[in-house]
């Protein structure tokens, strides 16, 4: 299979087929990226398309410094920030964790969404970028302008907190102990606080 980077360079040289392949590969993931973060299905669709538009317009300036996957999500994240800013101006903030109609009935999805909603904003973003977009710690650190160690510790904290939200009846003590090791005896720790 041809790598994304090779396809991107081919597209930079004018190959439309290369772009088509990239579009097929990333159209769904990008839509998912926006759909999970925005309540409007239509807007998620628009922004996914806009991401590709930015890729086309910036193709001439593209340099293979990072993975195409990271490059695409960096653009998507910029668009998302812009959208959130716009929404903050236009009216109430709607970019909470989305609730796609197709999954509204699935109780487990709802749990996950609700659990994510309870997380601190940056921790939620780190966790989602890791779990759904499959980005590496260093990619996430670069995208969110955070030190690598911070990403790692906050990702751990987010996972522990989400585990707590998802399974309130599970063995809380082990989670609390785990969190203690990471963060020290901090009351602010969500796991420890609840435990």
């Amino acid at each position, binding site marked *: 299979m041809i790598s994304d980077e090779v396809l991107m360079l081919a597209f930079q*040289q*004018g190959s*439309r087929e290369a*772009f088509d392949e990239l*579009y*097929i590969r990333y*159209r*769904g993931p990008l*839509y*998912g990226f926006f759909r*999970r973060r925005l309540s409007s299905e239509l807007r998620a669709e628009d922004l996914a*398309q*806009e991401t*590709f*538009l*930015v890729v*086309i*317009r*910036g*193709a001439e*300036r593209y340099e293979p410094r990072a993975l195409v996957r990271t*490059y695409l999500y*960096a*653009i998507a994240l*910029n*668009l998302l*920030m*812009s959208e959130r*800013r716009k929404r903050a*101006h236009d009216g109430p903030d709607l970019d909470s964790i989305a609730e*796609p109609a*197709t*999954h509204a009935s699935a109780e*487990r*999805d709802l*749990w*996950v*969404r609700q*659990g994510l909603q309870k997380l601190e904003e940056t921790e939620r973003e780190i*966790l989602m970028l*890791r*779990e*759904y977009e499959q980005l590496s*710690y260093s990619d996430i650190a670069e*995208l969110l*302008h955070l030190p690598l160690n911070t990403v*790692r510790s906050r990702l*751990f904290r987010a*996972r522990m907190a*989400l*585990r707590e939200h*998802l*399974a309130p009846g*599970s063995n809380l003590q*082990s*989670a609390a102990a*785990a969190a*203690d*090791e*990471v963060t020290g005896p901090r009351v602010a720790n969500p796991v420890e606080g609840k435990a």
Partner: protein
Amino acid sequence: MRENTHPMEHEEVMAYLDGELTSEAAAKAAEHLRECRECQALAADLQSVSRHMASWQITAADTLMSPTITAALDQHESKFTRRSTRSKSSWPALFGGFRIPGWAWAVSAAALILAIVAVQSLTSRHMAVPTNQIAMGQAAEPRADNYAAAPPSPGAIAKIETPDGGNRDRLRAMQSQMASNMELSSNLAVSAPSPRSAATSGDNAGNAVTINYAATARTMIARTAQLTIIVKNFDTSQKRLEEILQRHGGYVGEMTTSAPEGADRKLSATLRVPADQLDAAISEVKELGRVESESQSGEEVTSQYIDLQARLTNARNTEQRLTELLRRQTGKLDEVVTVEEKISDVREQIERMEAEQKNLSQRVDFGTLSVSFSEERKSQLQVMPPSVGTQFHNAAVEGYRSVVDGVVSLLVFFMSWGPSLLLWGAILYFPARLAWRRLRRADA
């Protein structure tokens, strides 16, 4: 402490599961995980979280590209087609191997366009477009940058500026439509009374639009009127006032009524009446009672509106450019944030100006009629002489007060002047005594 003795941090277990450890560290972690039950439990927890999260799947509806993307792709592709065509071009051969630089083509094209515009201007000099000549202090000619941004096609100019009946009608229709919409682009140039300055337009809204606004804009006047009326029947008048307002399609901006006991009732209202109905409404309100005072004023806000519109369009263009920049910007997050802050500032300005514009339009569309009316009321004379006992009591109190005041005043006088008088008395006593004795001796 357990934290100090445990050979592996829990974050490392997570990093191992995420494939984020070096091969050496990963091997060590795998070995540790085989033995440590605590870490095994943690790993199971972490994997369980990932499994739960994975259950939230999003399915994209269709995979068709939007027309915008297709168009952008075509444009992207055409660049390469042009490049390859250019490289195979026979032009160099035509000019004997001499390559004409791109800027030379651009200069030639600009010169050609200017020549056409000049010829058109000279031939249509006799065309006179009626102008109201709104003085805006703007340049008589459209600004150079307008043309630089989007040179109008010669064909369009010829069509509009030709003083033939059909095209002139078309010009007027276009002007009146633009006036009614009041949608002026940032490149709007308000014309001085130059008769040759007609209208030029680009191919779309984003391009330069230059019109003789003086010929098209309606004068915008914000009217205000103030009436003070004395009415005979307060309740009836209030009801009639509401009827008048309803009849003329107006609304109450603010209304306060006061009815203090023993005083006449008052109503103060700020009414907003459609500008074309204001005169009729005023004359009807005046019939409610005796007009005590009346004043009317009108403020022309045309220039203010145009200025605001131009600034607004400029700000919108800036926002659009910044947004475009942001879309293209894929570099450092700092730069993105800076651009976003700029966008935020511009948006704030736009919203402020939009609110101002809305307010201005509303002031023009709806005249302000301030009405205050009070009830005509006959005051009752209330003369009640006090009783004899009260008069004696008052006299006794006054007398006592006078005595006390007198004594207090005397004491105050002596206390304030006493020390001074004693001092001067002591100083002047002996000279005065000596003088007195001599006087008596002389008499003797």
